[in-house]
């Protein structure tokens, strides 16, 4: 239902314009939690916009990797939202954000250990069982790595997908940010991903502090990330590709231009392959 074409992350400053102008973009992604309310303008908007575009739901708050019990109320709201807007894809993160009932509301890295692997496997299975559908798991950008990790992140993620039948949402910018911050080869990471499990790709901008890269979703996709994206398409074929922009959100045409660029790169890659 979500085509292997370029889409954009729909954020509230663009709500009105997108519904009014219906720009030529193949699909839209929204943050699930922003539509958890029982009613009101946001829900009405979602009902209206889904008549015109395929919708993907992207969650940021489930805290799948936490050792706390899963928040069943959060999951219930997600399930209700899924029933209401029938999204093509539903995704969450390979991360945790809460412990002892306190949330940090950020995407925090796991240690890549056997313990963490069996834990998150169980949680993804529990989530997929409850929702009655596959979810995609996104790799995150990180600023620390834990010294007792026994697996590289790409092996951990591939194992999660293999064992739970979840899909992978491959965030190319996150791979690049982490690769620079932790000094690994991002090309190797992408090659190590199982092609069939990848159901979606994310692209976004990052900020270079000079000391490290910060994943701020606040600027155009960098040239290095576009290069990596081409590599991902060569390795895995065309995939639904999303442009995300969450801080210093630009005018809609800027976002659409980035999506058009991703679309053109995807078509060129397909042309070469064919």
């Amino acid at each position, binding site marked *: 239902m979500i085509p292997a074409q370029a889409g954009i992350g729909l954020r509230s400053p663009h709500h009105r314009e997108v519904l009014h102008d219906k720009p030529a973009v193949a699909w839209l992604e929204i943050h699930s939690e922003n539509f*958890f309310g029982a009613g009101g303008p946001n829900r009405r908007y979602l009902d209206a916009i889904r008549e015109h575009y395929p919708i993907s739901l992207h969650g940021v708050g489930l805290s799948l990797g936490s050792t706390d019990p899963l928040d069943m109320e959060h999951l219930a709201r997600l399930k209700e939202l899924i029933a209401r807007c029938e999204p093509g894809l539903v995704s969450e993160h390979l991360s945790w954000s809460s412990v002892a009932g306190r949330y940090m509301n950020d995407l925090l890295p796991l240690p890549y250990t056997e313990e963490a692997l069996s834990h998150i496997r169980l949680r993804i299975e529990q989530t997929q069982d409850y929702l009655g559908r596959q979810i995609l798991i996104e790799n995150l950008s990180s600023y620390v790595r834990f010294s007792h990790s026994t697996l590289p992140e790409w092996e951990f993620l591939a194992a999660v997908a293999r064992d739970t039948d979840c899909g992978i949402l491959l965030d190319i910018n996150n791979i690049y940010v982490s690769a620079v911050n*932790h000094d690994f080869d991002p090309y190797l990471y992408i090659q190590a991903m199982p092609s069939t499990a990848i159901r979606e790709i994310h692209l976004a901008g990052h900020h270079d502090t000079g000391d490290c890269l910060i994943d701020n979703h606040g600027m155009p996709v960098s040239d290095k990330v576009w290069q990596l994206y081409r590599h991902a398409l060569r390795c895995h074929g065309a995939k639904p590709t999303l442009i995300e922009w969450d801080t210093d959100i630009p005018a809609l045409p800027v976002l659409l231009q980035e999506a058009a660029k991703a679309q053109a790169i995807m078509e060129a890659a397909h042309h070469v392959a064919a």
Partner: protein
Amino acid sequence: MSLRDLQTAFMSSVFTRDDGVIAAYLESATMPGSPRMAIYRNNIYAALSKALEAIYPVILRLVGDEFFKFAARRYIDGHPSRSGDLNRFGSDFAEFLGTFKHAASLPYLPDMARLEWCCHQAYSAADDTPLDLLKLAAVPPETYGRLRFRLNHASRLLHSAWPIDAIWRVNQADYTGDQSVDLASGGVSLLLQRRENRMALMTLSAAEWQFLSALNDRQTLEVAYERAMRADPAADFGALLHTYVGQATLVEFFL
């Protein structure tokens, strides 16, 4: 180190600003110039602070960016976020502001925060359809007094000793008129209700406040009317009911 212990140590590092325990488990604790945990700490406080700014835009305008960030930081430390949904963070901000001594010179701030939290909640509350007048007309008149009503999910009642409605209005982003509010003008009773895409604030008379508050507490129409009469002997029963059914404040009734 178990996953549980690691997560506990990580959170402790974020909120105590002490990287002592977690540092032993990090592959490299610093980048040239900046400790890596500080990036997480900054991101976490920034995201929670931004969530408060989104829910409390009038408070932000009243106290300014710098003070708001200062207050938000204190609030975040003392009032943990309890959900992965940031729209649920900030429910105790009004109470916090009431005890925050740095804000004591603005005594109406807590009530303004209450108003903004009510608006935030009502804005995404469930949709209601107006009450079916035919159904109401079919009720035998002699049983009217025993009727109880439910208020619209997207409405709230709020009373303040300060003119918070006026302060709220002049601090809306699209307001261009005179910014001055006479704080001595006294308190206000308000009905907040979602209208299409925005929140409407309606000032209530003493009788209207008594009438709606009683119904909101699931008192009978008879009790609600008695209380309205006590506030204002000239209160018109028919007009009150007509108004609040008509504007879909009262959306359901039970006998």
